């Protein structure tokens, strides 16, 4: 691995586990995600997803594995020139061929579970993501990831910098969503342990001097 802090890192998260993954810095967290997505080169070692080493599979296969995973990005993770509604539907339309009409009820249900005010929903969905507050972007991004019903859900610093009530809603959504699919893995990734303190987890991996220990 290229990142100094991750040079000795070695860990695995099994299926069905809710795991807190705590890095020493935001930089290590970012690099960890870059390595997972193959957007940073690795000096040595390997990253495996669903039991397949990403270094040994084709680009097509890697993308197919990524499509089984959902990431809730701290900044929303939206494509800026698409409306929020188009952003939310993009992965399910691209991978599954769903139509907007077939997703509408499910999206509204997810947004309700995330505590997004019903009155605000139409305005949010028709806006460009850049026009919305970060908290709203994160909740809407969470709905997009959840809509794909992923086998692995990763929350990237998703509980940091939120108002208390919004964080509580997102936490209860994460717990509910984890239980919705048997074998679903939830990874709460953060460099701020405090932001994850009230989330239940089966496993806590903490980075110390480059190693991840339980």
């Amino acid at each position, binding site marked *: 691995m290229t990142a100094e802090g991750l040079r000795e890192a070695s860990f695995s998260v099994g299926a069905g586990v809710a795991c807190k993954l705590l890095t020493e810095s935001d930089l290590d967290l970012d690099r960890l995600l*870059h390595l997972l*997505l*193959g*957007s940073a080169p690795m000096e040595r070692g390997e990253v495996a997803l669903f039991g397949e080493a990403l270094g040994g599979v084709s*680009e097509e296969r890697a*993308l*197919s*594995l*990524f*499509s*089984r*995973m959902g*990431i809730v*990005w701290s*900044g929303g*993770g*939206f*494509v*800026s*020139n698409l409306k929020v509604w*188009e952003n939310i*539907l*993009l*992965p399910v*339309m*691209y*991978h599954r*061929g769903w*139509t907007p009409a077939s997703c509408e009820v499910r999206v509204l249900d997810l947004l309700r579970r995330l505590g997004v005010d019903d009155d605000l929903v139409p305005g949010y969905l028709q806006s460009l993501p850049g026009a919305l507050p970060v908290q709203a972007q994160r909740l809407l991004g969470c709905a997009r990831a959840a809509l*794909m019903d992923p086998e692995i859900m990763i929350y990237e610093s998703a509980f940091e910098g939120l108002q208390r009530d919004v964080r509580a809603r997102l936490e209860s959504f994460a717990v509910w969503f984890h239980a919705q699919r048997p074998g679903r893995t939830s990874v709460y990734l953060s460099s701020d342990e405090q932001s994850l303190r009230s989330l239940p987890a089966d496993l806590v991996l903490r980075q110390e001097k480059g190693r991840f220990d339980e």
Partner: protein
Amino acid sequence: MQKTDIAQVLGRRVLTFFVHAAGAFALAVQAARALPALAQRPVRVVFYRQIYFTGVQALFVVAAIGLVLGLAIITQVASLAGRTTDLTGRILVWVVVRELGPLFAAIIVIARSGTAVAAELGSMKVNDEVRYLRAMGIPASRYLVMPRIAGVTTSLLALLFFFQGTAVLGGLALSSFLFDLPFRAQLDNLAATLSFFDLSISLVKGLVFGLVIAAAACYHGLRVRRSITEVPQAATRAVIEALILVVVIDGFITLASFL
């Protein structure tokens, strides 16, 4: 600066240009392979939007330039050769259909869409949006690059024929109004001069120019790394390289068509 330094700088520039051209070509090949993805609705939406931005929104500019160009050519012909209907049709075909039509349409598309595509993709790279797409299992080559290349190429072809139509018909109409040249006689001359070969050359140029402009724009846009200051640089490089390639390719195609 010594002669060797100048040679080194020039050599490096030329080499870089060819490396970039090869990169853009590889991207165009990748896009061609990804063409079946147009069957997917989200990809098709990007394709339609590109046609709207590059083709539909440029119609007014293209029509205006075409009209002025047609009139300018007819005026020149009338001032040099007198008010003759024989020559106007022929010169319009030679100049507008074979040469200036494809070139002007390409320059308009480079100026409007080449910069826009490079800047848009560059901003997406800086804002990590390409990584977000990848994390969803959506490759940039299929979702961002292919529909843009296909959209720009389709639009350029349409704009090219629209430009030629406006320049030729508008030029003839204006000349019949200003110089009392019979419109119908000029049109008959034009129809007699215009061959399938002329239109084919025009079609080939439009197709190649569209691919080159879009591939260069996408290539430079996606080469942006982490800094927002790279975005305007990428747009400038895309424009310059597309212009050079278009002019060079235009020369080659014109030369080849006369061999």
